[in-house]
């Protein structure tokens, strides 16, 4: 990875942690130095993850390393189970056990035999060539493989959301908007919001859902597994904009065979259009007379960038500026992966138009912090009822941001 001025690509271990840390009535035990988990916990609190998975570290010292001792893990597990009675214990390695080759899955098996009343799940993805997105993918898949029980489909239609994880900016607000919409237009309740708002019991019931809504590509392997096991269809898409959200709803209807409540959908669309109406003349004027000011430059998760770009360009007529994603494995011709030096250059060269990217990059470059669409974040997010980016409300929110950004430029 080398020299960095800003936060580097997070590791697979960090992706795993951010995926698991929101699951209630669980405990997560990291085998490694305590600073790792202390500051991960701080970051999670800043992101608004409250009262979820209980986080513990074993700590590890040089004698443990020299002698290959792992007793601290057993002692910690014993202590945690006695005090907290978690339904599931997640075991994670930190960087040091990865270097010295501690076999966490084998230790997990031993602990499982010792504590048969508690489920142990050991997570790997700690290799030094594994980055966050792979950690998120693997964690979602392992949860989907290990926790769902054999259950029948629910009598009334239900759905799961897969991929709402704490690593994404405003993950809770986006999940809330999607749940609100699906409940309203399909009268369909969620079984499991995987993982931002869930319990072990919710995860166990996942197989009963009628559809899995995958809102980031990292969730697709989990959805494929659930399709094989429970024959649950899935839709991988992150809905942005009015048309984009409408299409997403139509796809859900087509996949599930459920009919859309046309009255509710129409009202959603009309409310959204009425809110957008005051902004549309300005957008049309900008597109026609000042097209350079509608250049949409976006940096962040590939699915977020793709969705917001489609809303701006296809629904409002904006032009694509410099767009990039934050994962080397997700880049393509239209939205390539940018390394740190490349996105620094993009920010330095940005002159006109809308620039939306990470909080860290916006703050450093002195740009409008309201235009944040991705992490790393620099602020606290204790209030989860912030406006979303996805769905109909997200369409209004994004338009509002663009109007304000344009006003500020004036």
């Amino acid at each position, binding site marked *: 990875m080398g*020299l960095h001025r800003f936060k580097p690509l997070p590791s697979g271990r960090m992706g795993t942690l951010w995926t698991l840390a929101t699951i209630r009535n669980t405990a997560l035990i990291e085998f490694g130095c*305590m*600073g790792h988990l*202390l500051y991960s916990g701080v970051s999670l609190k800043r992101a608004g993850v409250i009262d979820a998975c209980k986080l513990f570290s074993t700590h590890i010292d040089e004698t443990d390393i020299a002698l290959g001792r792992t007793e601290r893990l057993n002692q910690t597990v014993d202590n945690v189970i006695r005090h907290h009675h978690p339904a599931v214990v997640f075991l994670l390695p930190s*960087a040091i056990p990865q*270097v010295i080759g501690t076999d966490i899955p084998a230790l997990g098996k031993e602990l499982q035999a010792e504590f048969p009343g508690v489920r142990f799940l050991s997570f790997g993805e700690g290799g*030094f060539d594994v980055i966050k997105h792979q950690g998120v993918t693997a964690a979602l898949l392992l949860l989907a493989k290990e926790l769902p029980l054999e259950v029948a489909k629910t009598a009334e239609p239900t759905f799961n959301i897969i991929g709402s994880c704490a690593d994404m900016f405003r993950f809770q607000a986006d999940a809330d908007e999607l749940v609100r919409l699906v409940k309203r237009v399909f009268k369909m309740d969620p079984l499991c919001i995987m993982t931002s708002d869930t319990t072990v019991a919710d995860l166990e019931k996942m197989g009963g859902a009628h559809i899995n809504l995958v809102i980031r590509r990292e969730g697709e392997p989990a959805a494929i597994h659930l399709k094989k096991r429970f024959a649950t269809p899935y839709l991988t898409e992150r809905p942005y904009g009015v048309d984009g959200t409408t299409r997403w709803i139509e796809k859900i209807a087509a996949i599930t065979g459920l009919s859309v409540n046309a009255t509710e959908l129409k009202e959603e669309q009309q409310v959204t259009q009425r809110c957008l109406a005051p902004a549309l003349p300005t957008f049309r004027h900008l597109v026609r007379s000042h097209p350079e000011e509608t250049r949409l430059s976006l940096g962040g998760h590939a699915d977020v960038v793709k969705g917001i770009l489609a809303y701006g360009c296809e629904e409002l007529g904006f032009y694509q500026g410099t767009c990039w994603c934050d994962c080397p494995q997700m880049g393509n011709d239209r939205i390539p992966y940018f390394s740190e030096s490349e996105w620094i250059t993009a920010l330095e060269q940005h002159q006109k138009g809308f620039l939306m990217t990470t909080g860290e990059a916006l703050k450093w470059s002195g740009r409008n912090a309201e235009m944040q669409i991705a992490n790393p974040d620099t602020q606290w997010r204790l209030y989860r009822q912030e406006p979303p980016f996805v769905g109909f409300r997200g369409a209004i929110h994004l338009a509002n941001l663009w109007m304000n950004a344009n006003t500020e430029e004036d």
Partner: protein
Amino acid sequence: MNELKHLKHLSEAKSANGINFLNPAVSPGTHCPMRMASVIVEEIKGLSSLLVGMPECTTHSRLFSPNPEGTQGELHWLYVLDAHEVVFGCREGLVEALHTMDNAGAKAILIIGTCVPELIGEDLEGMIYEIQPQIKAQLTFVMLGQFKNVSYPTGSWKTLRAMGALMSEKTTDPKRINVLGRSPVEEHIEMPSLLPAITDRGFSLSYLAPGANLDDFANGRKALLNLVVSPYAQPLAERMKAEFGIPYLELHNRYSVADIDAIYEELAKYLSVSWQNTFNEERQEVLALETRAKQVLNGLRFILALRIDLPLPLSVYLGQLGMNPMLLHLEEYYPEDKKHAAALMAMGYDPLICRMVNDEFDLETVEALSPDCYFGYLPDWERKIPCIPDVFDFYGTVGYRRTHHLLMRILAVIDNDELLEKGDR
């Protein structure tokens, strides 16, 4: 109590490594030494840093040092090891990174090694020795793997000690004195009356601590004497004594009036000055409080919890006031702590020692021990046990006034009828 069987007594402690956790499940645990290094380098004007580690450490360091560049051209950059470097070392990449920072204008660079570089044995000292002649920026380093340095004080004292390598000026100014461990202006920490008394007698003070300039450190060798006002700065004083022959006096671990009298007298002799009546008023106030404290506190059993900078010197003083130490949380065990431990044991006390790393479980254990009071921090919102909090904020202040504040805080909590009945009065 069975829960305490795994703990050692103070008499068994040989170093910081032998102190066991009170409860094994760490949550949230104590700060990593890297945190203190990141905070300190950001607060020394003109000093750049290169933090070397894995994505976790480099990412988390931005919680404490959020800006990659400072206001005076400082660079606070990160070096992240990749999979190849974890196996084969990162020397080549680091050398290139340091050249890049040198070319970008860094004046001096402190390299902060975290867990994995320390684990794989990256030889930063050798690398600096080899490349310093090619680089304009002065280089120094600190290794802070948490598996070797359990808690945050190591990050402070090792970082400050590493600054000794940047002391290049060799002339001596007989009227210059270094104050090690505080800034001239601390927002929440009172200026000890001793320091202006020294300047009133014709000496200049140079403050070496977070908040200082790189130049203050570069000129550190010019001083006649070092005054240590924080435990975090004593290892730097030791280094300056060993390498430059600059003597030092410890002010930070003197609580009793008798101890403060002795060190002030020693300082006056060294400087060939007289304090005359400068400290009389504050000294008399503390003497009166000490008398009252001995009446009130005698026989009370106490526990030291988190956020206490000087647990052993404080325990010695509390022991002198008649209090009985039951359990001490020790964040660090400095070499000089051996003499404080001996002093405590000479009074007949040999308390259990521990590290408190789980707020919730540790509070339960402390409550089960039923001390008469505890000092420091525990998440005890119901205040079931009388607590003297905020002992941490005495960092950087010394002398009679500190003891005055300490005793006032203790007496404000303890001096009530219910507790008085528990003491030996």
